[in-house]
């Protein structure tokens, strides 16, 4: 073609990014020795390797060492050894190192970008303009937290050695999200990059050595599932941070149950992209391009479910189709490429299989007539319309460039459709009416909501999911919390209660008037479903009374009542504060009765019982006072946008209280959950259950809406297991024996409920401010709502 012909055609033509520097980098390294352990480069102990390929051509880029169990041992040992010195460094010293990493990455950013695109297949525009700059920003941002750690997080220390496992879709960015906060918090790390994409992590290891990261503080282990499993199960690891599929996330949750390891999981999603009739439709179309056709749709928070208002749906689909016809598939290294190949053949097959099945189930699938490269794992962008919520394309995470569209009539229906998923990672809301957008955003069950935008990320803002999209946040202050810990003031180990506890002896005298303690469900005293009673002994082992023997159906009813109690979560924080203060008044008024009950049941001296009641009253009053103060924050990303980090209730929280200090422990657990707007299903101390049945009488006249607190008495361990297996329970706090705690964590995988346990030990409820604060933090989900502005 001569210039005149080009002048007539006005096509773009190829604009390849040079790869010679990346090729030279690859050529000058023996990546068979790519395990970065204790500051040295090693081959795998068994000499194992795996190839990493260019998904656009299938060409093998490098043969990379494949870490095994013994390499994981070595890396964890190196991290463990490096930990004391790293923690002893001043925040300023750690900050300078984080800064040096960020700046060194900045100096080498094109090399990072080209390697990333070669290894992953993502368009160079994305690695160059998005992934790498965001990764750099993450280190520079966290340098500030490193220096300010003690001031910003008083009383908290780094969790220790962390094991980090990252996916292939954003290899360098996910590495940055993991390593930057860990180093800032004074942790040492062993990171395993994904098998498909180890290259930029290896380059990052070189940067670490150059930036003065002490040996062993950062260890990088390219490898596969064996290394991942070994890291997860390693006793020398204090925390696991994982980003990847929900399936593997659940395996990790199960594997770490009972281990005491801190855990954060950032998993899959099926994020809603809601377009209202009053949206800037053309801009919303571009939002979709950034939402579902970014990184070939291989994005955990991809806006994969388009939910568009019925009266503009056809117009909008037409605009989407027109835009799709302009997308360019091509070489990842071509600057004009919008969509590169999927990462591997297996992904392509999965995507095309899902589209075929979605089509069979009634979706109309459309692909634009655009050029498809001859080689590589390319998949055409796809719009599926008429997708019912029951369609596989609406339910399963496709992880490809496939958009599933459906329409809605009202805002309520849009929210219902958006929330009709097990996931809860992200959502977009498009409307030019701010009152509407800010109404809808809090109603969406998602950790990140973008108003009139999509896939906006920044180090200063938290990212992470609700529901089965995982837990924990990355970025911002909330992300730092995942790498910090306050030691729970635990006491002795709790012994499991024998299956058949000793039956109390008959009381010396029958009470003056017989009383029947019931369960308290949905604001009513109800008889247990099974109509059995549990005898409660007093301090001398004599019968003090009988409570209802709750069973799984009672738990089911209680959870339903808690779920149906919307009034509490929707009440203003001021209102909750007043109700809890009134509850405190009423508890205080019955102080004598509760103290007497404690003496009777537990055998403590009267003064000790009195102290416990007073402590409980004080605790409840404190949470009442904090109900309207434990607020979210406003983050300021480097864009014309504010990000509102809202504190939202977790939802329905199951609480299983211990026998020790039965009143104070129950109040200490109930109050923060209630203060933050959660509803509760409480299984009180089994041994001293009469304390709790006395308490519901106070609750009855304290103005709490029906269902806000539900109390099911019975065998605590058994009921704890029922709560753990109930997939409509969002959180579970449990003080009990080690086995019950482990089981609760393991069983939580059904819906990935947020579990907190005492690890099988008692807890000192009087030990300073940790409990109120730590539990308030656990009682909220942080939702980051991005609000870009400008008129």
């Amino acid at each position: 073609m001569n210039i005149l012909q080009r002048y007539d055609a006005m096509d773009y033509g190829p604009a390849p990014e040079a790869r010679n520097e990346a090729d030279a980098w690859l050529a000058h390294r023996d990546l068979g020795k790519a395990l970065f352990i204790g500051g040295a480069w090693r081959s795998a102990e068994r000499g194992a390797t795996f190839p990493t390929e260019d998904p656009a051509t299938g060409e093998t880029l490098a043969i990379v060492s494949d870490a095994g169990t013994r390499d994981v041992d070595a890396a964890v040992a190196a991290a463990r050894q490096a930990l004391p010195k790293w923690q002893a460094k001043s925040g300023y010293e750690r900050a300078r190192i984080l800064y040096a990493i960020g700046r060194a990455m900045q100096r080498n950013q094109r090399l990072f970008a080209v390697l990333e695109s070669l290894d992953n297949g993502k368009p160079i525009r994305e690695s160059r303009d998005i992934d790498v700059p965001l990764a750099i920003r993450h280190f520079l941002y966290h340098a500030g937290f490193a220096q300010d750690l003690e001031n910003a997080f008083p009383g908290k220390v780094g969790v220790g050695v962390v094991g980090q496992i990252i996916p292939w879709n954003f290899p360098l960015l996910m590495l940055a999200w993991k390593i930057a906060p860990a180093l800032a918090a004074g942790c040492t790390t062993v990171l395993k990059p994904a098998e498909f994409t180890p290259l930029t992590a290896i380059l990052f290891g070189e940067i670490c050595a150059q930036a003065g990261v002490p040996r062993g503080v950062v260890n990088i282990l390219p490898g596969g599932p064996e290394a991942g499993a070994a890291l997860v199960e390693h006793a020398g690891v204090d925390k696991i941070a994982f980003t990847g599929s929900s399936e593997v996330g659940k395996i990790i949750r199960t594997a770490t149950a009972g281990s005491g390891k801190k855990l954060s999981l950032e998993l899959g999603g099926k994020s809603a992209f809601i377009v209202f009739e009053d949206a800037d439709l053309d801009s919303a179309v571009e939002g979709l391009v950034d939402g579902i056709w970014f990184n070939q749709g291989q994005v955990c928070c991809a806006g994969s479910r388009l939910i568009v208002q019925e009266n503009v749906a056809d117009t909008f689909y037409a605009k989407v189709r027109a835009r799709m016809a302009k997308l360019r598939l091509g070489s990842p290294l071509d600057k004009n490429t919008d969509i590169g190949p999927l990462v591997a053949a297996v992904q392509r097959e999965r995507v095309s299989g899902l589209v075929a099945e979605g089509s069979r189930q009634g979706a109309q699938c459309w692909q634009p007539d655009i050029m498809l490269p001859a080689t590589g794992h390319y998949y055409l962008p796809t719009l599926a319309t008429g997708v019912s919520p029951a369609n596989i394309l609406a339910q399963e995470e496709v992880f490809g460039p496939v958009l599933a569209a459906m329409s809605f009539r009202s805002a309520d229906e849009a929210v219902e459709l958006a929330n009709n998923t097990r996931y809860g990672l992200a959502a977009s809301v498009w409307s030019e009416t701010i009152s509407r957008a800010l109404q809808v955003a809090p109603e969406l069950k998602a950790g990140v909501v973008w108003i009139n935008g999509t896939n906006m990320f920044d180090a200063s803002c938290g990212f992470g999911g609700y529901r089965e999209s995982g837990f924990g946040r990355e970025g911002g202050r909330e992300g730092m919390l995942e790498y910090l810990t306050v030691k729970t003031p635990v006491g002795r180990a709790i012994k499991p209660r024998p299956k058949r506890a000793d039956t109390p002896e008959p009381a010396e005298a029958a009470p003056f008037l017989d009383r029947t303690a019931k369960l308290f469900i949905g604001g009513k005293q109800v008889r247990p479903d099974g109509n059995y009673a549990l005898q409660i002994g007093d301090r001398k082992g004599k019968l003090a009374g009988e409570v209802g023997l709750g069973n799984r159906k009672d738990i089911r009813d209680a959870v339903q009542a808690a779920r149906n109690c919307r009034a509490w979560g929707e009440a203003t924080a001021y209102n909750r504060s007043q109700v809890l203060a009134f509850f405190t008044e009423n508890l205080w008024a019955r102080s004598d009765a509760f103290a007497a009950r404690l003496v009777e049941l537990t055998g403590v001296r009267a003064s000790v019982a009195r102290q416990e009641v007073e402590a409980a009253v004080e605790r409840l009053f404190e949470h009442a006072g904090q109900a309207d103060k434990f607020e979210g924050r406003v983050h300021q990303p480097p864009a014309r946008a504010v990000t509102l980090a809202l504190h939202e209730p977790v939802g329905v929280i199951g609480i299983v209280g211990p026998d020790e200090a039965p009143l104070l422990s129950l109040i200490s657990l109930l109050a923060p959950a209630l203060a933050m707007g959660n509803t509760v299903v409480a299984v009180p101390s089994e041994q001293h259950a009469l304390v709790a049945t006395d308490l519901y009488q106070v609750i009855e006249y304290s103005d709490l809406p029906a269902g806000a607190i539900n109390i099911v008495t019975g065998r605590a361990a058994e009921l704890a297991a029922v709560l753990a297996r109930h997939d409509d329970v969002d959180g579970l706090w449990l003080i009990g024996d080690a086995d019950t705690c482990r089981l609760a964590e393991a069983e939580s995988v059904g819906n990935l409920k947020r579990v907190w346990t005492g690890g099988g030990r008692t807890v000192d409820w009087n030990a300073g401010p940790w409990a109120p604060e730590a539990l308030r933090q656990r009682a909220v989900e942080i939702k980051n709502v991005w609000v870009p502005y400008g008129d």
Partner: protein
Amino acid sequence: MTSKVREADAQRAANDGATITPLPGRAGPPLLSHDAVARNPGMPLDLGWLETMRQVNRSALERRAATLAKRRSIKADNQAAWLLRAVSVMDLTTLNSNDTHERVRRLCAKAVRPFRQDLVEGLGIAGVDIRPAAVCVYHPFVATAVSALAGTGIHVAAVSTAFPHGLSPLKTRIEEVEASVADGADEIDVVIPRGLVYESDWTMLYDEIAAFRAACGDAHLKVILGTGDLSTLRNVTLASMVAMMAGADFIKTSTGKESVNATLPVGLAMVRAIRAYHERTGFQIGFKPAGGISTAKSALDWLVLMKEELGRPWLEPELFRFGASSLLTDIERQLEHHLTGRYSANHRHAMA
């Protein structure tokens, strides 16, 4: 012309079917043959439609504009071709208070022979007149330009209607259009009184533009919105829609005299309005960003914007123009670099 009259006109146009009017006044051979663009007859002012066009999210448009140029890269021979394209859609402009007839003649000479001979030969474009689409001047120089450009096919555009503010009596402004047309201008760049936008006086804005269009006759009407004065992209979109309904052949961003010139987000808002008008009426409206476009790189960004948002037809002079004065020199330097691999200097290329 009142809106009633326009309605009748539009009705007639609708009854006759689309009127195909080639760009008038072209004396020389066409640069490249393309289908003629049907001239926009305008339509009755539709306030209901206008209301639905209010949803313009600046932040989102800015993000799109920022990534547009980064999503597309034009290299090597394609870049040379695209830069030639930029020249072919250029309104080579002089709008200075000290303009003289001689200065305008010089500008016209440059328009006729924009490139050094060695560049023409090196690029292989000898025999194909790739040169600016028009020369744009104030009214007193129209006749001078017309005579200097006679037989070249280069159009003469006159800025009009009390440029750059548009704040003289309507009668005077209409007469100004008529005078420039009488002097031989075949393109008239009118300005709107920006106050009408702030007053949401869409009817008056519509009537004024319709009157200008009537005064133009066969000359093509470019409506300058003065976007730097309009404050919001919503205002830009609404004013664009009213201008098109009133019969604009082109909508144009700026006079070059506002403190903010043509920006990509403003351009994006305007081309989306053009797309909406095209989708609804079938008529293709031209777009002219003007002011501050002085580098070859920024010219490419605008061409990418047109191709991505509106498509290939909007890369022809019938539907796209740059208003520019110093852009041509930068393009010449880039073209020289393309041929020689050496960076060039301004003084190596003939000034206007």
